């Protein structure tokens, strides 16, 4: 079954016809030519396809496109607006990636995570669950980023790259 939907991707409106089975990830990669979000597992187990969906980080591989009619989507390509996003600059400076395949997902996830922490959301690493202000130490960042796997294992560089932006 095909349905017509509208999506706003990295600031640009798109009208497209999708099979009900098509995920946001495949709609972006196969139909809209935006291959910034990556397919690493297609089962919500790696985080490579992380998108900002109406401002929140989610996994594009588990989101049927038809269920997100009219959604506003931001990918790592869209985070760079004229110049690289501070997270992107920091990732380069800290060499927070090797093969680069999980990297757009890590960066979008980090952007969403920083907003969550800014809103006072706790994590499993919280020492005080009731605290309204989140102090993003390395343990907090690592816990909050654990949904983004990196097989090259750049973790020891990714956390400082995010911390530098978080502490600005």
């Amino acid at each position, binding site marked *: 079954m095909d349905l017509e939907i509208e999506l706003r991707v990295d600031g640009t409106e798109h009208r497209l016809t999708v099979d009900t089975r098509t995920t946001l990830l*495949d709609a972006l990669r196969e139909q809209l030519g935006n291959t910034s979000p990556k397919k690493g597992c297609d089962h919500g187990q790696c985080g490579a396809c992380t998108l900002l969906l109406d401002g929140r980080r989610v996994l594009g591989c588990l989101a049927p496109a038809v269920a997100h009619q009219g959604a506003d989507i931001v990918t790592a390509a869209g985070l760079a607006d004229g110049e690289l996003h501070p997270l992107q600059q920091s990732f380069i400076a800290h060499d927070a990636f090797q093969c680069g395949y999980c990297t757009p997902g890590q960066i979008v996830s980090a952007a969403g995570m920083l907003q969550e922490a800014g809103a006072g959301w706790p994590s499993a690493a919280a020492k005080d669950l009731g605290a309204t202000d989140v102090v993003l130490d390395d343990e907090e960042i690592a816990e909050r980023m654990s949904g983004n796997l990196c097989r090259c294992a750049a973790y020891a560089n990714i956390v400082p790259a995010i911390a530098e932006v978080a502490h600005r």
Partner: protein
Amino acid sequence: MSHVTARPHAIGLPMDRVDGAQKVTGTATYAYEWPLDQPVYLYPLQSTIASGRVTGVDSALAEAEPGVLAVLSHLNAPTLTRPDDPELAVLQSAEVAWRGQFIGAVVAESLETARRAAGLVRVDYESRPPDVVLRADRDDLCSPVHAAAFGTGGGELQDGSPADSLLGDVDTALAASPTMVDTTYSTPMYHNNPMEPHTAVVTWLNGELLVRCSTQGVSMSQALISGVLGLEPGRVRVVSPHVGGAFGSKVYPHAYAVLAAMAARIVRRPVKFTLTRQQMFALVGYRPASIQRIRLGAGRDGRLTALAHDVIEQTAKAKGYAEQVAVCSRMMYAAPHRRTTHRLAPLDIPVPTIMRAPGEAQGMYALESAMDEMAIACGLDPVEFRLRNEPEVHPESGLPFSSRHLTDCLREGARRAGWEHRDPAPRAHRAGRWLVGTGMAVSTYPSPRFPGNTATIRVGPDGRYTVRIAAADLGTGTWTALTQIAADALSVPVGQVEMRIGDTALPAASVAGFSAGINSWGTAIWEAADRLRARLRAEHGGIAPPEGLEVSAEMAGGNPEAERYAMHSFGAQFAEVRVDEDTGELRVTRLLGMFDVGRVINPKTARSQLIGGMTQGMSMALYEHSVLDPRFGHVVNHDFAQYHIASHADVHAIEAHWLDEPDPHTNPMGAKGLGEVGIVGTAAAIGNAVHHATGVRVRELPITLDKLVS
């Protein structure tokens, strides 16, 4: 005499990756991402039995599905030229040699349709009971038969080494030793699991094949794919500028590229094919499981008298891959009496392949665990025990080492890790509910140079240099490191150098594997740069002519010095672990590696490779384990929710340091390999630390909490 002719300027600087901006925005083009006109999609059919044959394929329902263009099976697949590699002989017979093997494919207009239609194909089998269990007491263990794919030894193992080695009289020496350790360690099947799934996107154009695939070496892929399809190599172009991780699993093109090429020839449209994560557990190799018996004898002076390392490992009946697990024991320590053996159990399982530090990763886990046990048995500090057993020359070949600064790594690593304050008593240190322990182990990996590299450098009238070689960047930093090497070889700033890699339209190159990339490609670039500079000087007064000048260097052979020197990277790793006394939960709170890797080309990307290797070593030690179901022959935990790799929260302090000691014989840069040495020894260091923390010696990886909870 020193052969190091490097003029370091760019070399040694922590340059940012030249492809960094593309990678952080997601715009670097991986194999599946090339824009194509009217592509079609392939979804494979996999056998659901582990042994037997296909007796019937009913594809009527699938073919009736709108959008389906073709259903392939052995019944209608084109005949391939018989390849040397049986793994590549896809759809050539009805035989099934492992569960999950390709038995067909559906090609359709959309990804969703192809996958759905594949589920509609009905396959009948004649099935034999699968034989998939590795045991030391099997009566069919056999010696490996010429599995060599690399190296010049022509021996029985994959790296070209002979299967067995023997010096002196091990049994007599062991019997006479005042202290003896006789232990058996086992390592499970591990899967490489790069984040980017294996992919081939294939287009036929005027009888020529364009393959965009994710590969560690376009030239090798070109040779293998053209060979299987019966084409002149020049009619197959392989393109792979960015690779989303590989760790050995993308050295060979495996069967998926052949299947995609076959399909593209039939449907006459560009075919896109990427494996699912689950399919990767059956189709693109893995590190074979091993059972390793180690016997060590030591004298009262703490010096080894005998060392025996006997390995039994998994292999596939379909292809006799034989890994060099005990080869590390041939060169690591001095001992007058020594023996190594390798025996295989051929099973109805998928074909194994290279996985980061093949052989050393498992072999050094066993050897370095046994060394820890022996140090304790001798009442010696484990660092001191290793210092006492450092060989003067390669203990088997008698060749001197091109450089071996292991003792410096041991001493400096121990100093940085605060090792001198260590109380050797197990279970002596705790922090709250955590038992705390430290352990160490040694790392090593060969530093070979591969033949078959040509580099071409062109200087334009504007004084800009274009360097062309079909090298690969798997995340290793090749784009950047080769730029630095070329700049120094040409004595120009890096801004004047443009690299071109990852395409068979470029001069041929060896694979990115065996930690040989920089050594092999860098040497060719260095030679081409020297020739270019010489010609510029001799013919053009040192100024680039208006028409430009292009020079190539073909390095047909490997390193001639390899006949006179043993070439290896080294390291010492120190681990601190915490084990929850109640639950057995284990955290590696600190890992420190001190390495001898020659001159480091780019400290930034080098550090990333070393800590990446160490983190993978931790993952190997604690989490990873492919569970083969003995009844069905498949990997049960075939996804990222069940096959755990280390994630962010598992990583605490990880440090990698290195000595600044260029190797005088490996290559003009003085560099040694560092892609694999980081993963070697980590698992042993952690296991030794777990013993120190808990008093429990786990000899079977991974060290999961069930082995520690009581």
